[in-house]
């Protein structure tokens, strides 16, 4: 869906053929999101079928050369996407959060060791991202720089979260936190989002609480 909408957006300034869209998409996203050309053609065909794009006049009959333009319906879909905030609910499952919570729930390992190992890895990742961002020219590589910033903030958020987990664990004592995690897990199993799981359970990250009903 994101790719479809992104391609519609790239058609906003005029008709383009598939390869051009692939190149423009990759440039726009700073090279961080390679697109398969087959995926582009399939998406365009689906959009054409749904009346969101149409072949531009005077474009050839060869599918590869065919240029597409937005229809009014396509423009509406695009405008609706642009006007609506990106929906973050339900939150994406995060493997790290789940890992830490199950470690706590079942005393599967020393949580401090898990936290430490992750923090080291994430800090190293931050260092590499930072090197990349520092090498970028703010004028020429703006797209890549914005992508790098995004990844940097995500990594930083993870480190902050790990720091906080560690401090909460230290303050609460492992037993209390493990009990809270077990309560949160039990509440999740009951289909409860955790509101009733008690004060200590609120310490567990909301986005990591297991939800009832299998994977997304």
């Amino acid at each position, binding site marked *: 869906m994101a*790719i479809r909408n992104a391609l519609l957006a790239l058609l906003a300034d005029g008709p383009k053929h598939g390869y051009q869209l692939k190149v423009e998409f990759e440039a726009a996203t700073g090279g*961080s*999101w*390679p697109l398969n050309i087959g995926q582009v053609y399939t998406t365009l065909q689906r959009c054409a079928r749904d009346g969101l794009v149409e072949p531009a006049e005077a474009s050839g009959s060869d599918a590869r050369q065919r240029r597409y333009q937005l229809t009014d319906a396509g423009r509406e879909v695009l405008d609706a996407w642009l006007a609506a905030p990106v929906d973050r609910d339900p939150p994406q499952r995060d493997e790290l959060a789940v890992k830490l919570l199950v470690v706590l729930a079942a005393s599967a390992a020393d949580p401090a060791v898990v936290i430490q190992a992750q*923090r*080291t890895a*994430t*800090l*190293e*990742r*931050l*260092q*590499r*991202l*930072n*090197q*990349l961002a*520092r*090498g970028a020219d703010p004028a020429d590589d703006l797209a890549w720089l914005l*992508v790098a910033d995004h*990844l*940097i*903030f995500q*990594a*930083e958020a993870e*480190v*902050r979260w790990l*720091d906080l987990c*560690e*401090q909460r664990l230290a303050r609460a004592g492992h037993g209390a936190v493990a009990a809270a995690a077990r309560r949160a897990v039990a509440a999740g199993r009951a289909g409860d989002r955790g509101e009733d799981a008690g004060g200590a359970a609120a310490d567990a990250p909301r986005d990591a609480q297991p939800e009832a009903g299998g994977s997304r």
Partner: protein
Amino acid sequence: MSATMLQLNAVRRVFGTGRGETTALDGVSLSVAAGELVAIMGPSGSGKSTLLTLAGGLDKPTSGGVRVGDADLVRSDAEALATLRRRTVGYVFQDLNLLPTLTAVENVAVPLELDGASARAARREAHDALAAVGLAGLEDRFPDALSGGEQQRTAIARACVGPRRLLLADEPTGALDSLAGEQVLGVLRERADAGLAVVLVTHEARYAAWADRVVFLRDGRAQDQAGPPAGPETLLADSDVTP
């Protein structure tokens, strides 16, 4: 190999006595070479600022060794420490670094004049130091007419003038937004690349990532966390930047 500029050896610092006793540092060893930027991270109260004050000769350890270049700070008397702070070690705090009644260039010139430079020579060098941190043109502003980021860069310029070889920065980005913080880090990084040994205390991992090494303090103990970083090439191969 570059020369070691700062060397902490099994440093302990205990504040207070009896029931009020706090062990701020409990056997920390750390060495920082010329040209190296080392970040110190760790929870509040873990001893980061204590470590910097010891490294800067503002305080002495309960036990253990502290050397800056050839100087043994534990054995140095007050006068020798004052000279060290004036010539060799520069300090930048989170805020309130500048004298409000002096202009930017006058602030930067202070340590040089204290060290006996003529007003003229001091001013010239301060001028260059401000240019080096990207503040050419703002020399005659008073601190209250500088943004927080500009004030911090002025403070860094002041901490680097003269024959300074060790720069200690305690949360210099604390009150800044991301872009201003990044500029401050850029300046610290440049100073390190120009040959200073730099120690940065920060809570923010994204700033720590500018460092060659990150040292993590917890309960007064140190552990090396990360770095020196591998090449950035490894990163683009990560699958999580692709859909």
